[in-house]
């Protein structure tokens, strides 16, 4: 009969009640990973770097030879260009797709996520050979192009064909971080922006886009780095005339058995990659919170 208000909630228990071990015990958790990385990455990489300055003679001969070799310079530039094109293609495809994933209900989201992950569950070789079939002069893609009056055109063995195939392979690495970033954006923010006088376009450009950019940066870094060192798809879909850096390294090792030159190329690839990653990190640092590769790529 009488409405009685509930008694005020009890004060919260201080959160600092748990003790956290500090220093060495925690570092031990990283030990297995550190050991694996040291044995299988740091040591071979260091050895390769050493070979590049010691084979056949001590000095920077391999590097000067590489820098003066027109073919190598062309391949390095082509690799960079290809990685950039693949990254842009991935952003253009992944951004609207990830946005769609945030807008649909749970059932459709599961379907869309499965479609993204399907390539992950399929062998890379199978997918690459599928692209070889698709991109043939008489393949499905050329058939479609011919139907709209654009073909047939040569796709297999060209940079265009390689970019499309690589973009497809790389797409999940872009969709997932972008989706994760978008899912973290409070929908009220767009409402708030429009309530404050922003047109839908302005609300997107000033609020939604900057907030989703962290995911794009994370995805772009992943795709860029993976594309720079990509070997399987370019060598099967592309051609030796249009080879990329990883293929060049393979030729040096497998056919010319020139470990010095291969080492110099590998070191160059590593340096270019690190410079790119550092650059992206710098560009997207907002409010002291760095964008981690893992930050967006998780889940």
């Amino acid at each position, binding site marked *: *009969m*009488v*409405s*009685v*208000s509930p008694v*005020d909630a009890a004060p919260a228990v201080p959160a600092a009640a748990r003790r956290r071990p500090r220093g060495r015990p925690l570092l031990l958790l990283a030990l297995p990973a550190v050991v694996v990385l040291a044995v299988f990455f740091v040591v071979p990489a260091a050895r390769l770097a050493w070979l590049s300055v010691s084979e056949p003679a001590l000095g920077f001969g391999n590097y000067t030879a590489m820098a003066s070799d027109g073919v190598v310079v062309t391949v390095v530039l082509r690799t960079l260009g290809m990685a950039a094109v693949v990254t842009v293609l991935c952003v253009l495809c992944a951004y609207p797709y990830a946005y769609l994933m945030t807008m649909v209900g749970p059932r459709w989201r599961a379907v869309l996520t499965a479609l993204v992950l399907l390539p992950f569950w399929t062998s890379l070789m199978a997918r690459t050979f599928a692209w070889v079939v698709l991109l043939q002069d008489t393949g499905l893609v050329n058939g479609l192009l011919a139907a709209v009056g654009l073909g047939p055109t040569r796709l297999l063995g060209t940079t265009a064909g390689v970019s499309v195939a690589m973009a497809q392979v790389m797409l999940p690495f872009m969709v997932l971080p972008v989706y994760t970033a978008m899912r973290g954006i*409070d929908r*009220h*923010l767009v*409402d*708030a*922006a*429009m*309530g*404050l*006088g*922003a*047109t*839908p376009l*302005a*609300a997107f450009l*000033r*609020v939604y886009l*900057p*907030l989703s950019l962290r995911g794009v940066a994370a995805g772009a870094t992943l795709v860029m780095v993976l594309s720079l060192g990509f070997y399987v798809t370019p060598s099967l879909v592309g051609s030796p005339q249009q080879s990329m850096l990883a293929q060049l390294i393979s030729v040096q090792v497998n056919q010319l058995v020139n470990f010095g030159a291969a080492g110099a190329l590998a070191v160059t690839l590593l340096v270019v990659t690190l410079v790119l990653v550092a650059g992206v990190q710098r560009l997207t640092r*907002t*409010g002291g919170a760095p964008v981690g590769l893992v930050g967006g790529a998780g889940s």
Partner: protein
Amino acid sequence: MPDTATGARIEVEGLTKLFPGAAAPAVDGIDLEIRPGEFMTLLGPSGSGKTTTLNMIAGFESISAGRIALDGGDIAQLPAYKRNLGMVFQNYALFPHMTAAENVAFPLKQRKVAKTEIARRVSEALELVHLGGHGERLPSQLSGGQQQRVALARAVVFEPRALLLDEPLGALDKKLRESLQLEISRLHRELGITFVFVTHDQDEALALSDRIAVFRDGRIEQAGTPADLYETPSSRFVATFLGDSNVFTGRVRDGLLDTGWCSLRAPGGPEGAVALVVRPEHLRLAVPGGPRAEGNVLSATVTDVVYQGAFRRVLVRFDGGGSGQVREAAGVSRSVSVGERVEVCWSEDAGVLVPDGAEPPANQPVGAR
């Protein structure tokens, strides 16, 4: 802020919102007139349609039927960004990638205000909410109360003629809520613009509002000043939603309410099935067998005594059935103890008779008069 600013008049007529797939409309043909400069609170339990109504006024939700007018002009088809209304959200909705000052500058930039003018007005708005000197911080570096102050500054910096607030204090703790209540009240006085405030907190509504519209199941149950609603509720729902009440249900015959277990003297009011509502502060406790007071007297047993600082809440069980509560000033009278026999008395004009129906009464237009 110029003190010449005046508030907008907001009129809502037959406003209806039917969400696809929903059995009943979320908002069911409400009429409401909000006067210029008024502090109007939309109060109700969750799911009663108050926030949906606010979102339709703001333009975040399309309307299914009816009319929304701002100073006489129909705005129902206008997109949110053209309505020029300030809005404060429960979760602050500050842009996390912008500093406090950039957040406050946002509406001015959208309106293409000159740079120097923006700088001046942003610092004025931050001063207004006592956050001068915090402009360069990011929202994540501010406390919840400070974030909501930034949101307030951002919502009024472009001098809208009405400010819509959607449970702005809901996420804050009690102390902070009270200090921000004063802040909002002061802002309303200083700016002189119309405030439309959504809350489910009756104390907040009573403390802040010029008028309150009580929502229930998509309709407005009653609208009026806080005193109107508290002292002369028009329904049992309003009486029990606003403040604590003792409710006696029964039928009125010849000025007497027959509850089935006792007969009470009732004030004038509706006939037939009714509820007599008596506020706990209007009940007094007396020793059995002592001098009889005029009015209603019921014998009861004390079941609980809750000490609440300035007052005591005494819960009782009436002999005939049912329970009730009495609110006594602490330290004035002798404290009773659990199990003690008492008499509960009140003067017959202290209560209010309202129709007792499980169904809400037909919605009546509640315009300003």
